[in-house]
């Protein structure tokens, strides 16, 4: 148990954050809370990729003249870091867009509660 935690514990914690985000998106009634949960979910996925990029005994992916470029085991994999860098910025843009839409909904319907919105849209 301890051994498997030391090997996979980081993934499990990351999945816990993922589940918290999913819970918020499914269960919360308020749309602002749903957006916050979306952002938590996204953070968990970013964390997953960063964990996957980690190598035992490796350093940051910045070229060091003393180590040289031949030993790939001396550097953490730079590819997931790059992809997550772009994912973070896209995440900020989507959250901004979502909040703009929420402001618009609030202006039109006067509420951000899911149930109340459904009633108002029926009538």
């Amino acid at each position, binding site marked *: 148990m301890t051994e498997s935690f030391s090997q996979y514990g980081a993934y499990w914690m990351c999945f816990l954050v993922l589940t918290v985000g999913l819970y918020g998106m499914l269960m919360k009634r308020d749309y602002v809370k749903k957006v916050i949960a979306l952002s938590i979910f996204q953070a968990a996925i970013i964390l997953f990729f960063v964990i996957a990029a980690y190598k035992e005994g490796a350093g*940051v992916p*910045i070229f060091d003249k003393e180590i040289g470029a031949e030993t790939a085991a001396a550097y953490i994999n730079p590819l997931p870091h790059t992809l997550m*860098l*772009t994912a*973070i*910025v896209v995440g*900020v*843009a989507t959250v*901004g867009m979502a*909040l*703009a839409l929420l*402001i618009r909904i609030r202006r039109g319907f006067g509420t951000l509660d899911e149930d109340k919105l459904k009633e108002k849209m029926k009538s």
Partner: protein
Amino acid sequence: MITHSNISPILRFACRSAARIIQVFGVYVIVHGHYSPGGGFQGGALLAAAVFLLRIGEGREHSQRDMPSRVTLLLGSIGVLVYGAVGLLTIATGGRFLDYDAVPLPGLSLDDRHYWAILVIELAVGLAVMAILVGIFDRLLQRFHHD
């Protein structure tokens, strides 16, 4: 409504000096992204954070001098266009799209051409990210200032 008369001079001074330090650090993060963790996205976010601090601390009207709200989308499109222009430039000089071997910088070896092209790209990305984050921030808050 925040005006010059009712804002505390201590708050004003603290915000201004902190924002300047953050801006210098943001530029450092962009241009030093070749040697240390950093780059256009991170530095652009820092520059945007400095403007947010001014907007919150001094109020929207007084921080227009530092970053007017109406030019944000313009600056953002300039950043994206510079990026695209570098790509088209490499096509025009006989390479593929964003193929930095073809960047017309005479007297430089191939790897140095990559170096300078990456710097231009990072500056363009930093400008675009900074301007658009400030633009989104301003649009989200605009209602409070007009009512």
